[in-house]
């Protein structure tokens, strides 16, 4: 009897190991989640309304800053500070899209569609699934960023000379930044698994705080000294600086925030912080997931 039990349990374990996705399984989890995310994001309406919905929101946020700036400076859009504000705000769209996109999947699946428990019994890799769910928001975010920048270039004298853009630096920085945001999103997803009351606000609160401290729309020197240091430990600060330097180098030189650091030094800091967040996200998510399983929170519906 004991030997039979032992045989059964070893069979169960090997079956579990076989059903655990590896390699191609990771890719499949990611690909299917990306497709699912796109369907959820886009199929609630017709393509025209979806396009308007996707672009109006980011353009409005940019327009608030443009109007504020225009009133005070009498429309002096040639100044480097305008380019600094405008580009920082445009690329910050990715923060909300990728970071909140990854963590939002937990809320959507658990509270709204009530399918998170089915995801957990399916042969998929949950972190890869969550990354995949963020892809749709990344795509919509990318188009919004592009439209915002094109709008600025055409109508607001945003000085981006395509011939002088450091494209290699731009794409490398963009890629690392998006990865970093996805890892931060995974940390948020882990926290979201454990809490009931504030899951709706969590992504917004974190994105809002980072918006304030990362110097996205004003140089860090404007912040009071007591809180300025926060900006220097946030990877988004370095990411936005690299993107600005890649697109319009002289604008970044006009502000003292990171002027003493070369592009390579900033890139190294960004890579280091991204690695740190990657490792942290794996541990935080595993720990949160373990607790969520223990406390029976995977299929929780709070009705908040």
């Amino acid at each position: 009897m004991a030997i039979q039990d032992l045989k059964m349990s070893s069979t169960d374990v090997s079956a579990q190991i076989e059903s655990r996705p590896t390699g191609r399984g990771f890719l499949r989890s990611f690909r299917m989640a990306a497709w699912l995310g796109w369907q959820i994001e886009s199929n609630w309406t017709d393509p025209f309304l979806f396009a308007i919905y996707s672009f109006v929101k980011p353009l409005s946020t940019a327009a608030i800053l443009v109007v504020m700036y225009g009133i005070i400076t009498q429309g002096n859009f040639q100044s480097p500070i305008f380019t600094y504000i405008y580009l920082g705000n445009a690329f910050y769209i990715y923060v909300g899209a990728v970071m909140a996109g990854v963590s939002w999947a937990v809320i959507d699946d658990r509270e709204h569609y009530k399918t998170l428990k089915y995801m957990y019994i399916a042969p998929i890799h949950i972190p890869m699934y969550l990354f995949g769910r963020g892809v749709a928001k990344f795509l919509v975010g990318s188009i919004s960023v592009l439209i915002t920048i094109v709008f600025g270039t055409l109508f607001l004298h945003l000085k981006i000379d395509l011939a002088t853009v450091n494209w290699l630096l731009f794409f490398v920085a963009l890629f690392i930044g998006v990865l970093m945001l996805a890892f931060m999103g995974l940390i948020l997803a882990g926290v979201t698994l454990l809490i009931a009351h504030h899951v709706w606000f969590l992504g917004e609160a974190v994105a809002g705080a980072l918006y304030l401290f990362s110097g996205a729309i004003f140089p860090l020197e404007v912040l009071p000294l007591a809180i300025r240091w926060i900006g220097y430990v946030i990877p988004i600060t370095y990411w936005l600086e690299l993107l600005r330097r890649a697109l319009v180098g002289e604008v970044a030189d006009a502000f003292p925030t990171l002027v003493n650091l070369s592009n390579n030094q900033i890139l190294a800091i960004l890579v280091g912080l991204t690695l740190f967040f990657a490792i942290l996200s794996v541990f935080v998510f595993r720990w949160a997931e373990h607790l969520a399983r223990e406390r029976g929170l995977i299929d929780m519906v709070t009705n908040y």
Partner: protein
Amino acid sequence: MNDSAAVLSPERLKKATGFLLFLKTVIARAYPRVIGAQREKSWMFFDVFLPMLAVSAYVFVYRAINAPEEYIGFVVVGGAMTAFWLNVLWSMSSQLYWEKEQGNLALYIMAPNSMMAILLGMALGGMLMTALRAAAILILGSLLFNVQYQVVSFWQLFIVFILTMVALYGMGMMSASLFLLLSREAWHLANLAQEPIYLVSGFYFPIKSFSFWVAAAASIIPLTLGLDAMRQLVFPSGPTLGFLTVTIELLILVILSLVFLIGARYMLVHLEKLAIREGRLTESRR
């Protein structure tokens, strides 16, 4: 056994009817908004914390471009008023959609009370609850950024605020009926109506910065004129940056209040019938 029969006996039940029933419904629907929300202390933190982040970011933008100090005050007052817009958007307009999703809407309609009373209760409760949050943002923002006020007339300020609230929540009641017909798109549409309204209503800058016709079109949102009038009454340079005179803005707010409240009554009756006919009251298309 006899006791419970006596309790349930029709002779012992005092049923509220007419205006009393209307009033009781208003209070009953307002109660969870005011009392329930205060019990969830942590919500208060998020409701104040999130707008404060936006307010702080915009204040630092103005500081970065060396704006006059009064603009900092404009942002703080506008930031406080965002609490009301968010409340109208998410807890008035979308509320009947949420109730439908959770299965409560059918219960509201089955119960022998007026739907208008339910909407009014939602509005009054939401207004009181949000006033606390807005006050917290205003006080905190004013202290943090050292905003100086110079009130011209407290009475006018009070009347402007009350009329803005009546018109705004009247608009919320009217749009709640429209949302009754929506499904999954309700969430997206409410989400869409945040930043564009912050832009056109001049939450963070004087609405006069737009051309006359853009500002006039934006005045359909009661907060546009309400904010403009309030800024004129509390900041020394307010009148020079005002869109219209306070008296004209007050008059328009009175008209908007009447239009939205009467409109809400008719829209609710019409759209409730439509929703019943098309079987949309209990549908849940996720």
